């Protein structure tokens, strides 16, 4: 933490033994940081090597389980085609993410100001949430056709509920003393909303957005399973039917790499906007 030193005279009292202990402590902290990064990486490499060896030793046929090297070869050889199929999936996921979360934020705001709306609509939202994606996906494809719209709608719906619940709770996470403070200051309703409620809700919103960044990709892929000629979902189905396991695995790698990147972007935004949040800075 970069704090102005209040007791700078203490610094002169630090003896060389203290400095040594301090250096030792810093070294231990650096080592711990490297361990946190390197251990998972080592575990992943070990698993891949075991997998490769297992495929070789037990002579497993490629269409049942391809060796990691075979997957890597496909990834390299068909990267253009894979990325070409990632593009529609990414568009659907991001569009669904934006639409679903915007709708959830708007509805949560309505809930906070109109209790009646919450009482009337929240049970319906819960009911919808209990329907599995796989069940309502075909309905949306029937309703919206075979194009982008149905997939966007599925991705939006899958994002919607967690954000609605979190955002409603976030907007209400204002303490009664903070509300009293705003009243003493004669704050207008819009000042209370933008300067107090919205800011208080951001940590809740971002934890929902992080969930949504992963689920929106799932929504888009599920939508493509039902009926699509391009996209990660369509490619998964084709590769499975053709017993092209290396392609199937490579497709999954591309899909999850995109999910991880999406998640990383949201996490970065969270750190940027929530610098003040204790949980983030600690």
């Amino acid at each position, binding site marked *: 933490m970069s704090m102005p030193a209040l007791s700078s005279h203490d610094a002169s009292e630090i003896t060389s033994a203290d400095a040594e202990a301090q250096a030792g402590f810093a070294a231990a902290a650096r080592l711990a940081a490297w361990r946190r990064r390197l251990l998972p990486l080592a575990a992943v490499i070990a698993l891949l090597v075991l997998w490769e060896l297992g495929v070789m030793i037990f002579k497993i046929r490629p269409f049942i389980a391809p060796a990691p090297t075979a997957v890597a070869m496909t990834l390299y050889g068909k990267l253009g085609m894979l990325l070409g199929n990632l593009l529609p999936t990414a568009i659907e996921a991001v569009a669904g993410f934006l639409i679903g979360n915007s709708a959830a934020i708007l509805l949560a705001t309505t809930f906070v100001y109109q209790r009646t709306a919450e009482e009337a609509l929240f049970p319906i939202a819960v009911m919808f949430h209990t329907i599995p994606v796989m069940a309502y996906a075909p309905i949306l494809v029937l309703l919206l056709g075979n194009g982008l719209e149905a997939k966007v709608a599925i991705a939006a719906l899958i994002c919607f509920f967690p954000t609605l619940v979190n955002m409603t709770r976030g907007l209400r996470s204002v303490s009664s003393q903070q509300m009293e403070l705003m009243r003493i200051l004669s704050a207008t309703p819009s000042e209370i909303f933008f*300067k107090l409620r919205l800011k208080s809700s951001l940590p809740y919103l971002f934890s929902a957005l992080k969930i949504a960044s992963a689920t929106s990709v799932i929504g888009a892929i599920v939508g493509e399973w039902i009926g699509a000629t391009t996209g990660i979902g369509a490619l998964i189905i084709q590769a499975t039917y053709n017993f092209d396991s290396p392609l199937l695995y490579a497709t999954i790698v591309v899909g999850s790499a995109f999910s991880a990147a999406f998640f990383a972007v949201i996490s970065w935004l969270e750190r940027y906007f929530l610098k003040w949040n204790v949980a983030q800075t600690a």
Partner: protein
Amino acid sequence: MSIMSQTTVLDRTPVRDESLAVRLQDVTVRFPTERGVVTALERVSLTIPSGGFLTLLGPSGCGKSTLLRVVSDLIPATSGQVEVLGTTAAAARARRDIGFVFQDASLLAWRTALENVQLPLEVGGRSKRGGARDARELLALVGLTGWENAYPHELSGGMRQRVAIARALINDPKLLLMDEPFGALDEIKRDRLNEELLRVWEETGATILFVTHSIYEAAFLGQQVMLMAARPGRVREIVPVDLPSPRRVALRETPQFIALAAHLRTVLEAC
């Protein structure tokens, strides 16, 4: 010693007295609850002279916080008269003449110390007055020079409460209401902040109404201590405090202070 003699002399004439910062006459506050109507305050009368320092002392549930909220127009009085700075509580609040310091500092976590102090200047635009104080100067006044850009989570509990005091002072209020502001602090910090509060009080010339459940704090800070009894919340006694000024923490070891504290304790225990 009792308030009763004072109020009978003072009232009957509903003249608005500018030399009084706060005047409550027979103020009663009732709330409907699940277990029936609760009387939070019953016929409470009190006056605070302009520039005075009144501490409110009493057991929990005696309506101390309710009283502060009636004076600051957060809760309406069910009956009785409320006069704040020569006008109604609502008008005094709208004029930005009232500063409030809460039990927890209630800082906005996403604002730095300086930005928290400046919050009152950014909201309630139309009611803003000209005479706002400089936020950096106020932070210096409460001993937080060098911490302007620290976020609340980087500050200790005592420092957060100092920021809250600076925030309450930004509009240069004539009346400062404090609701157990140091209740969550350890004794040493509390002592230090008590001394500093007296310094701030002398420097700003504001009237202070201070709620506490600490006998020592009430006696140390107040020019008068108002003792309250619970269920229903009512005034028990108003005790004038004749202690030399400026007051330092060592004052608490003097026989005069010990006798005063003993008297307050006796009255409280009889509540």
